[in-house]
């Protein structure tokens, strides 16, 4: 297989676009939340400033190599996810480094960051971090289960593991989207999406009140800035997968922006008015609602 080296700078271009779009969208979501609370909200460029500020802090404390690697793993999870999934269907520039079987790789990247984060935060030795990790891992593994089931269902449905092929199969009008051809899988995946976005009602992991922000308690300065960068990339990257698998992908940047925004809004709208579940409650919720949907979707296919 001959590899086209030109793809690498193009992939980085994608990352660049997505980072900026992610910053914009995060701010937009925060602004929407503020407007629901009758506030004006943050300036739209606030997140850039926060990030520069955090990179610009003079001191930082480390708790060992793994503590440092935590955010790095997390960031590489986000970037990797983005790099190996085609963001624009049919575009040579923005199909990134995708190849056959990349669905498995993408799934791997989805989990990769979380695990790295857990290891890194545990290194800090802070009890809040430890509690946050136990909550986080148990909830994430539960929340990702329906997603995994839905992905299998989709893979079975299209008889391929290549994201590009799945997107290709969905071209041809809205009704060919997985959303309509396999609604069970999509609903299972969307419920799982809620759980993995770390927004209420499933954000007890990073809850400020229940435990001060969980795993990232000890992260600060540049570590935090790395994590902030990831926090803007990762949701977009994840939404790209969702979009490709279930919503027909995107053939141009405007379509991409619109679809990502709408999918993001789904979690934001739910999140803004809901309180949080406890961990065992959210696990039960996923077991009762999302997992059966996922299983059902596989059986239907």
């Amino acid at each position, binding site marked *: 297989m001959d590899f086209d080296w030109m793809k690498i700078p193009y992939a980085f271009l994608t990352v660049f676009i997505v980072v900026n779009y992610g910053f914009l969208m995060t701010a937009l979501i925060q602004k929407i939340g503020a407007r629901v609370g009758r506030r004006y909200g943050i300036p739209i460029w606030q997140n850039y400033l926060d990030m520069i500020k955090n990179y610009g802090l003079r001191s930082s404390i480390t708790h060992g190599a793994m503590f440092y690697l935590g955010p790095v793993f997390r960031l590489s999870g986000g970037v990797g996810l983005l790099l190996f999934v085609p963001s624009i269907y049919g575009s040579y520039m923005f199909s990134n480094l995708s190849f056959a079987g990349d669905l498995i790789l993408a799934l791997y990247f989805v989990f990769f960051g979380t695990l790295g984060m857990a290891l890194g935060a545990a290194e800090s030795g802070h*009890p809040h971090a430890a509690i946050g990790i136990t909550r986080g891992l148990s909830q994430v593994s539960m929340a990702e289960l329906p997603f995994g089931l839905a992905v299998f269902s989709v893979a079975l449905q299209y008889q391929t593991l290549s994201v590009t092929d799945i997107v290709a199969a969905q071209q041809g009008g809205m009704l060919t989207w997985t959303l309509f051809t396999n609604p069970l899988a999509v609903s299972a995946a969307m419920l799982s999406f809620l759980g993995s976005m770390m927004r209420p*009602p499933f954000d007890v992991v990073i*809850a400020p009140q*229940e435990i001060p922000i969980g795993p990232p308690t000890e992260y600060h300065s540049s570590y935090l800035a790395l994590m902030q960068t990831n926090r803007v990339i990762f949701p977009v990257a994840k939404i790209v997968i969702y979009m490709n698998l279930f919503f027909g992908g995107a053939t141009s940047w405007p379509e991409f922006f619109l679809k990502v925004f709408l999918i993001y809004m789904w979690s934001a709208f739910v999140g803004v008015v809901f*309180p949080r579940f406890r961990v065992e409650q959210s696990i039960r919720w996923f077991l009762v609602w999302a997992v059966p949907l996922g299983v059902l979707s596989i059986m239907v296919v």
Partner: protein
Amino acid sequence: MYQPFPPDRSQYPAKKADGTLDIDLTSGKYLKLWQGPNHPGITGNMSVELTVCGDEVVEGKTHVGYLHRGFEKLMERRTFIQCFPIVCRICVPEPDFNEYCYAAAVEELAGIQAPERAHWIRTLILEMGRINSYMMYLGGQAGSLGQGVIGQWTTYVRDLMLDRFEELTGARIYHMFILPGGVRDGLPDGFAGRMEETLREIESILKDVYDVMFCNAVFKARTVGMGVIDPAWLDEYGVTGPNARAAGVAKDMRKDHPYLVYPELAFEPVTGKDSDIYTRADVRRRDVLVSVDLIRQIMAKMPMDGPLMCAVPNVLHWKIPRGETYIRGECSRGEYGYYLVTDGSGYPRRVNVRGPSYTHAMALLERMIVNISISDVAALMVSLHTYPPEIER
């Protein structure tokens, strides 16, 4: 040690001979966790020392004293009128009860009688303060479960109420308005109309809060059946106010020991049945509506002229004969009381403030916190509606 309700610790650490728990922290089975003082999930500047086993709390100890300023000592070396500006600082979110209780206690011991109109204005201020305090609570209760938007809405209407306070007294938080002998001023022009607008806004926000918070499935899942206060504990732990009313006991000092103009106002204490966090929140929400109604009644019935202050002796040489008294009022958390002892000099001999949080946050919380999940500690603590400054003063 005699314990009327031994906590259910069947699967938890064994007890030692002296009744304390046999917790071996080095065994790795237990973890000591401090919630507070620097913690968003704590009501103000206090802390709870939790011993957890897995995700469950085995033992909790409340630690207070972070806000101790020694008011009771400071007041002993201030004249009666010098005490007046500092009493309101004892309880920050609802300062007016300090002013009222202190003023009433001084009046009683000095044998002076505040005029009728002052009573009406005092009642009005107390009810306005109660709404403020409840609004803080509703926001805090939702916030402790991650529903930040409720806090935004309720703080918004609380700001409106603070505007009314500012009109009336000239200050947002510390009003220093109810002084021994009466009140400082009457209502400004057009106050009734603006008050009515504020009350309407409060009602409309409360309706939104009801829809978003009380009808929310997640909120119910977190709070229904959580943190139950057994009605039998009420006397043992000195539980008063909405915490007691949510347990089905209509303990309301406004009815039990009527003061000010409450005998002339028509209202019924709000009670609940289930005594869990949800019921306590609901009782408080309905109590706001009662207060709104009371303010409307007060505005309608209030005499618009008449004296605001009675004749008070020269406050610089004001000596009060020896005596002791206890004045109480129903604040938003429960029974607020001042125990004042005078000895014939120009200074109080002793002032003791009975804040309702004193019993709620200490003995009761330590009793209730056992066997709940760490994630519920914040919600439980907020649901008792405790304000640390009135515990340690």
